[in-house]
């Protein structure tokens, strides 16, 4: 088990470097530069800029320098936000995204599991149909449509909630709900399908034959097998939660990392782009590892070599 974890951690480093390399290549092979988007510069100034950022060096020297810096976890300074290191920027803006993402995932888990289990137990009931229709709706309404509609209703019509920005808990409600909707929908569908599958299995029949009541059958015997698909969804969910936060942060004007990332991409702020890509890749891979480990606790049949 420890060896498995250790091996997986070892893989994370080259993988993150690979992602960074791909990103770097994409930025470099594309025509244009971060400074050329501004205005036409006199050649002398352009030379100076190139020299300052090492852009006059051959590409492999530039690549080597970048990789060396990254391995030392030094992503350099942002090109756009003068005088601020990439690490500072990430440290400042990530907490917003993390809060948002974590709360949204917990909310989605709570709603999704509850709705999915109840829907499975009351299969073909009105609750079941209602839940599944709502889940399908959750999968079909883009979050950048859901967010503004919530704002329209709760802020501009009812005046209950602040429409945007970061403040107390009230400010969090709509962004978190907007972000959670699609995951709650997914988890509800996965849970329902998983529970239905398990509740028809032989070992549930055995549990019933023992004389256990339905509650024990469900919670003690059914639940673990039923939520395995939900756990395996957690990995991909975290990756796509990222895309979700980009949208939600934009809709609600929250200064999170997603917003900063989009800005950095539009500005061609190479150090910042690479820094954020590396940071988020590592984060997702660690989360995936955590999911795989939790599998082992959930299902005794899984053994790590």
């Amino acid at each position, binding site marked *: 088990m420890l060896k498995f974890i250790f091996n997986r951690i070892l893989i994370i480093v080259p993988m993150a470097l690979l992602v960074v390399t791909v990103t770097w290549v994409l930025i470099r092979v594309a025509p244009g530069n971060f400074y050329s988007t501004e205005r036409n510069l006199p050649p002398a100034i352009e030379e100076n800029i190139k020299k300052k950022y090492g852009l006059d060096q051959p590409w492999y020297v530039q690549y080597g320098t970048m990789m060396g810096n990254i391995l030392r976890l030094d992503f350099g300074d942002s090109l756009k936000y003068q005088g601020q290191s990439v690490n500072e920027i990430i440290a400042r803006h990530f907490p917003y995204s993390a809060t948002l993402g974590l709360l949204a995932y917990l909310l989605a888990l709570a709603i999704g599991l509850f709705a999915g289990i109840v829907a499975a137990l009351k299969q073909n009931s009105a609750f079941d149909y209602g839940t599944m229709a709502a889940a399908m709706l959750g999968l079909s309404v883009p979050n950048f449509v859901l967010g503004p509609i919530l704002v329209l209703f709760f802020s501009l019509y009812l005046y209950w909630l602040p429409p945007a920005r970061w403040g107390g808990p009230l400010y969090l409600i709509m962004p978190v709900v907007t972000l959670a909707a699609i995951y709650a929908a997914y988890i509800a569908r996965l849970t329902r399908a998983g529970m239905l599958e398990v509740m*028809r*299995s*032989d*070992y549930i*029949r*055995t*549990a*019933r*034959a*023992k*004389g*256990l*009541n339905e509650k*024990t059958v469900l919670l*003690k*015997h059914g639940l*673990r*097998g039923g939520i395995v698909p939900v756990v395996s969804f957690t990995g991909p969910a975290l990756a796509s939660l990222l895309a979700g936060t980009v949208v939600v942060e934009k809709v609600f004007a929250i200064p999170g990392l997603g917003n900063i990332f989009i800005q950095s991409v539009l500005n061609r702020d190479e150090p910042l782009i690479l820094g954020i890509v590396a940071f988020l890749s590592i984060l997702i891979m660690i989360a995936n590892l955590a999911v795989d480990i939790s599998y082992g606790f*959930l*299902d*005794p*049949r899984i053994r790590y070599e």
Partner: protein
Amino acid sequence: MSEHNGNLLSVNDLRTYFQTEDGIVKAVDGISFELKRGETLGIVGESGSGKSVANLSVMRLIQEPPGKIVSGDIVFDGIDVRKLPIDDVRKIRGKRMAMIFQDPMTSLNPFLKISTQLMEVTQLHLGHTKQQAYEHAVEMLRKVEIPAPEKRVDGYPHEFSGGMRQRVMIAMALSCEPELLIADEPTTALDVTIQAQILELIKGLKDEFGTSVILITHDLGVVAGMTDKIIVMYAGKIFESAPTRELFAQPANPYTKGLLKSVPDPAHEHGAPLYQIPGLPPDVAHLPPGCPFAERCDRAKDICTKEFPPFVQINEKHHSLCHFAKEVYAASGGE
């Protein structure tokens, strides 16, 4: 005991139907049988004959929907199980009547330790403390001859072989010393050598605990040495019921005769092909008006495809569902 004519279980005109895409399937359609204390009953039939559904009905384990026990009495030690509230059924299940299933690979919960699965039965029904239940679990594993039970009890099902898992299932079923044990094809999924061991085990434990047993199988060879009487089921109906010895010696139903002929006989000379009943079991959703076996029967007459056969009494304990039951009985007596 005598207040129910010595019967531990008596089933009368049981009908269990299923709602399917193809219409209503009459999986069990009016069967009756009785079982005395300490007696062993064999129920024989091909897959789809309704033998499992009949016994799941006795345990009230039919999933509703799509299934439903539409009529009949299931009287267990004077209690009408069919009319009992489900909470009271649960007090009997696992305690006074227990069941072993066909596939030991899927019948144990893969996520829980063997100890947990064994302990919960006695904790629930016998009020055992954790400690008592644990010791009892080890004791039961020893009874079903699992080597090193103190160690194995903390294992997970996937660490056990098929035969060992079936032993665990038996241990679980017998934990509360039930009065009735229903074994639904307990050996079908196992290797031949293991099959004999498991049957011996059931036999031994049955004698030890004085349990009544219903042994469900599609293999007449399995029931031959173990049962006091046999019911042969086909298409949801009882085709023949008789004491074991008489059924083997003088069957009164062409279907039973076909089954008997298809049992491999080691004394039989080599080279002769094994007999097989021609055709396939009927589609229970679309049964013909006449005898459901008529199409496959070698002595079927006109009447067989037109009229449903009567349940003929051959003697006190021997019945057969056939237009020509008496003729078949007489004929097989002379063989």
